[in-house]
């Protein structure tokens, strides 16, 4: 058996640490490379890209591709840029996230604190929604939207996303509220608060971390959705993901790679911002909870 002196221990740990950092660095570069390519090429004139070196920094810096992607690029038949579709996405994602999160919280509240006969089965069925592939529901959903008169509209898309999101949001909130002390609910009952008052005044204000998790999850999923947008939206309600596809895969004219890159970054920007902004609150919320004990 070899006796590790403090010196060798330090040296080996340094070596191991260097190795770990090297591997981490390689992976970081590897994962950041696509973003780098997108950003770099979105600020180059088209000629520079045509010369072939995708990894080179721009010789001439220009924001024209961004302007074009945002407001003038040809999307389908209209030279509108991504802007109207971006607005469609915002109009879809905000109510969809808000409603599905709120309903999920309500479901979690009922399933943990107002138990009823068969609540386990109800929860199981809701969970089932997490595992149904999108494609299966396309045709029945189209039929229902038609019956409701919501086909091809933003409210229709909101409805689809709320329904599809409920399984996950319910799961998140149920698990969170399961650990929430029932005595608090009982104390509030004795204090005379009713079902909704307990929810608004006691439960929701204590749900910060799980709300952030749910919002991140729902926002990313709904913003990035392509299938429902392509299936259920009309031209005037199409989300930005569809528009981006139409921009990039148009088969006429010159392929403006720089505009495509700029458009792709634009379309991905909101999810990125949500991650960066609320991700921090998420960690903060977790830490606060951990220290409180």
């Amino acid at each position, binding site marked *: 058996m070899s006796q590790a002196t403090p010196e060798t221990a330090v040296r080996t740990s340094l070596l191991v640490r260097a190795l770990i950092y090297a591997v981490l660095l390689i992976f970081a570069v590897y994962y950041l490379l696509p973003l780098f390519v997108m950003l770099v090429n979105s600020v180059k004139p088209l000629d520079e890209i045509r010369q072939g070196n995708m990894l080179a920094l721009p010789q001439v810096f220009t924001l024209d591709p961004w302007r074009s992607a945002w407001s003038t690029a040809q999307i389908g038949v209209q030279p509108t840029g991504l802007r109207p579709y971006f607005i469609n996405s915002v109009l879809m994602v905000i109510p969809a996230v808000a409603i599905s999160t709120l309903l999920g919280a309500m479901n979690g509240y009922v399933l943990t604190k107002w138990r009823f006969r068969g609540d386990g089965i109800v929860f199981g069925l809701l969970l089932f929604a997490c595992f149904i592939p999108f494609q299966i529901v396309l045709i029945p959903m189209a039929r229902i939207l038609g019956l409701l008169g919501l086909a091809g509209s933003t409210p229709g898309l909101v409805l689809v996303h709320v329904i599809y999101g409920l399984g996950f949001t319910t799961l998140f909130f149920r698990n969170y509220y399961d650990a929430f002390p029932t005595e608090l609910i*009982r104390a*509030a*009952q*004795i*204090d005379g608060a009713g079902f909704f008052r307990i929810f608004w005044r006691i439960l929701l204000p204590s749900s910060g971390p799980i709300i952030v998790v749910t919002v991140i999850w729902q926002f990313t999923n709904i913003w990035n959705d392509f299938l429902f947008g392509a299936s259920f939206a009309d031209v005037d309600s199409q989300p930005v993901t569809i528009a981006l596809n139409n921009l990039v895969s148009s088969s006429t004219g010159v392929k403006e790679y720089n505009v495509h890159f700029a458009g792709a970054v634009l379309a991905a920007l909101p999810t990125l911002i949500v991650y960066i902004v609320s991700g921090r609150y998420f960690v903060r919320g977790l830490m606060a909870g951990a220290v409180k004990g």
Partner: protein
Amino acid sequence: MAFLEINNLHKRFGAVDVLKGINLQVDEGGFLVLVGPSGCGKSTLLNTIAGLETISEGEIRINGRAVNDLHPSQRDIAMVFQSYALYPNMSVGQNIAFGMEMRGVPKAERDKAVAEVAKTLQISHLLDRKPSQLSGGQRQRVAMGRALVRNPQVFLFDEPLSNLDAKLRVDMRTEIKRLHQSMKTTIVYVTHDQIEAMTLATKIAVLKDGLLQQFGTPHEIYNNPANLFVADFMGSPAMNLIPAKIEANGAGCAVVLARDGNPPLHLRAANEALRAHAGQEVIFGLRPEAITDESGADRMAGGVVKADCQVEVVEPAGADTYVVTRLGGREVIGRMRSDMQVAPHSTVPFAFNMDKAVFFDPKSERRIA
């Protein structure tokens, strides 16, 4: 008519009977302690009084009014929970005022009531803090403040002290007793700690497996336990319960205790009821404080019997020294004065105060004498 009445109360969860016909009466201003081991149904009983659990059968009356079907908020009760159940998102002041806010009391009135209660409990300086910034004892006070401010007909306490450390628990116990003495409000208090039960209660209800074992004053419960369970559960160290045989002996009778390696010990008992059980096996119960050294024996007692026994273990506890011997095949604890010098394995004289002796039937576990 009693202030709080519980008549033939049953509670079933599916096929499981949790409470099997409980009958209790508490007078106005009384302090009822529900005590028993985990799972005996004491917390369920409290929750049914609060209205947090429905009842399957029976009736609960508060001040003459049946409250069976009333919502918890309409029963005019207040409850202090084991975990304090303070709303984490509200300040201490908001926590205390929440009940009034729900009932639509105007803000000025609320503030006044909160300030008053905070002064009583000495938490005025904490009103703006969040519960997470408080110590255990402070949280306990806030939880009591939230109950006090409602000025209810009945206070319900659900093991309120079990999350505190030992010293704080004793302090808060005294404080609760003082509060009760000054307010004179009826209290129902759940605990598994028999010392809390003894010190606080005017009436104790001992529960086990959903059945009321005994209901009486602390003195009755302690000195006249109705059965083996109550005798064993109440008191610390627990009552010595020793298998013994009764022999008729002239006018009285004697309790015969087997001993290893020594002839059996005969303890004379002047107990009339015991004569009927001559020749039978019984369980002989005697509390540690009734087994002492000779000079520590109660001078007022008539039936002190002295006998030499071999000491197995000596446990000095400061105020007293507990001495363990072996009788009838059981460890028997006696309480001697702390300045007695007793060595393990020596044989010393013990004094048995037979006035305090109780006897149980080993089969039915009921008290027989």
